């Protein structure tokens, strides 16, 4: 169609002729689109970060936690997780799965003149292989040291910094945890953390030592980790764990459990749930600003139609049909909105980049988000452009020509 080219050219010429006005009008669309993109970038970035953390921490790991065992509103059963549960798991399903219990508390740690407060984790040697920890210096503790309640410690990669001493020099030295002397036998390689666990900042000691020497006979575990051979085998693992612990706790399969089994993707789900409300709010704001932008477009298109009444008359006198005129103004609104959309996407990218630089939160913009934003601004152009365009198209040629 040769007319189509003319239509687009006229639309562009009209926008250029009123550059300032067009620019100010599209601002609403620009801001709206930028808001959408920034919002998506932040949400997507955070989600991706959580995803990465989960992958870093292992996607094949199930976490058993105490609690959630309520019967008729009253806490029932033991509602605790003990070493016996971990031992039962190891006895019954340990040949397929790797098991590591964990007890945790924060204590003062001192070495020479330095002191810091660190999370102290009591666990089994299996913990290190379960989480694929590697050593920078020294060695892990072993089964014998757990049996013997030995005071040995493996430090997370950031702990030497806390104690202001290079990791290599700390191995073989004695540090004080809650005033109790421990020999440092190893320093872990950097692992990276997740929101919910920071192994690099932790100190790992044998479970028995932690329970009886440090925490004063405390026997409630924080959690038991179970690693399946592969992420595909989480479901059978879940069933096995449930069976074993129910038997330990004497809970019938029909009753509610007093423990919970989570997998790492549950964390992502929880995270998504919380961010969703926030996202909806932001989407609402972005939507309103796009709506306001659209009304601005409609307003300026009505002005444009009125201003150009004579031109419409001339074009009609020369053979332009209603449809041609309708398209003419629709394309103009569309071009304005899509231009605004493009600028908005660029602005959104800029804002996301700025946020990353300033606050370090990671951002990511999906290609679909860009497509949706542009599509949406085009839709706004069509929606708010159609009425002014229709008004232009139904003008009577002679009335339009007479218009002063």
């Amino acid at each position: 169609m040769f007319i189509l080219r003319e239509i687009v050219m006229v639309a562009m010429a009209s926008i250029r002729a009123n550059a300032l006005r067009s620019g100010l009008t599209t601002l609403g669309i620009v801001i709206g689109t930028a808001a959408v993109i920034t919002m998506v970038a932040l949400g997507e970035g955070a989600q991706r970060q959580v995803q990465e953390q989960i992958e870093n921490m292992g996607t094949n790991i199930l976490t058993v936690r105490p609690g959630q065992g309520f019967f008729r509103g009253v806490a029932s059963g033991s509602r605790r997780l003990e070493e016996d549960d971990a031992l039962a798991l190891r006895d019954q399903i340990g040949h397929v799965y790797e098991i590591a219990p964990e007890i945790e508390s924060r204590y003062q740690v001192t070495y020479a003149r330095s002191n810091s407060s660190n999370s102290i984790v009591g666990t089994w040697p299996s913990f290190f292989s379960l989480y694929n920890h590697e050593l920078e210096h020294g060695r892990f503790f072993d089964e014998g040291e757990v049996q013997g309640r030995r005071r040995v410690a493996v430090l997370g990669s950031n702990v030497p910094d806390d104690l202001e001493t290079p990791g290599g020099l700390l191995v073989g030295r004695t540090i004080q945890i809650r005033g109790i002397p421990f020999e440092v036998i190893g320093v872990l390689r950097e692992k990276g953390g997740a929101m919910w666990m920071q192994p690099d900042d932790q100190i790992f000691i044998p479970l028995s030592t932690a329970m009886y020497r440090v925490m004063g006979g405390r026997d409630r575990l924080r959690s038991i980790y179970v690693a399946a051979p592969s992420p595909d085998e989480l479901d059978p693992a879940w069933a096995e764990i449930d069976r074993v612990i129910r038997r330990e706790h004497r809970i019938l399969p029909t009753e509610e459990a007093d423990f919970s089994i989570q997998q790492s993707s549950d964390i992502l789900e929880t995270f998504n749930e919380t961010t969703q409300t926030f996202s909806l709010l932001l989407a609402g704001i972005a939507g309103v600003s796009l709506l306001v932008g659209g009304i601005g477009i409609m307003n300026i298109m009505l002005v444009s139609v009125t201003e150009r009444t004579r031109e419409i008359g001339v074009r009609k006198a020369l053979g332009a049909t209603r449809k041609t005129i309708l398209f003419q103004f629709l394309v103009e609104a569309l071009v304005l909105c899509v231009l605004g959309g493009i600028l908005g996407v660029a602005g959104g990218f800029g804002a996301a980049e700025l946020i990353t630089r300033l606050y370090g939160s990671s951002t990511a913009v999906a290609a679909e988000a860009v497509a949706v934003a542009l599509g949406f601004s085009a839709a706004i152009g069509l929606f708010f452009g159609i009425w002014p365009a229709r008004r232009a198209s139904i003008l009577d040629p002679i009335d339009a020509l007479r218009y002063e």
Partner: protein
Amino acid sequence: MRNRGRRGQNGSNSETNGVVIHTEDLRKYYILGAETVRAVRGVDLEVKRGEFVAIMGPSGSGKSTFMNLIGCLDTPTRGDYWLNGRKVSELSDDQLARVRNRDIGFVFQTFNLLPRATALHNVELPLIYAGVSSRERRKRAEEKLTLVGLADRMDHRPPELSGGQRQRVAIARALVNDPALLLADEPTGNLDSRTTMEIVEMLATLNQAGQTIVLVTHESDIAAWASRQIHLNDGLVERDFENEGKVN
């Protein structure tokens, strides 16, 4: 498609016997509140191919209203109108746009050019709406601009042209689709006497080449160039006669 536009000039359908305009009891009333203005009150008229008709009459006698009706810019309140044997008064909106585009060339007193477009683009407009390719469009627009003597002003915009030049652009635009009928409502109303003569001579030349023209004018020395004069008064034809003392 393109050939349809040329049909008018080279002779209309056989059944019309060379009649370009045929009106029967054509009327246009304007209703303004309680009052009805009867601008055209029943005009029966026939204009044959090749005629050069001058419409005259006092101000407010309905000349422009009548021109707008036969130019398909306006629709009659009553009566019928055939253009080249085709009953125009019952056509749809889109069909009327097509008739305006292909069969009629309209020249206005106030030129009605697009101020931001070049002379060439202004002349190309009817061809754009006729769906002519850009190369062909350019060729034909240049041809008509050369015909009206503006070969060296094609890339000028209307504000950069004199009144006479603007009207010549408008004439080139009206002619570009080779319409069966060229209508001009006081085309020299905004021009000085020397430019007026240029335009009138141009119209006369076009008529000699076979172009059917209907022209509205107040001035009898312009009407003198026409082959026929129609005097309107109060919305009715008062006198209609062949022009004996025709110039040329």
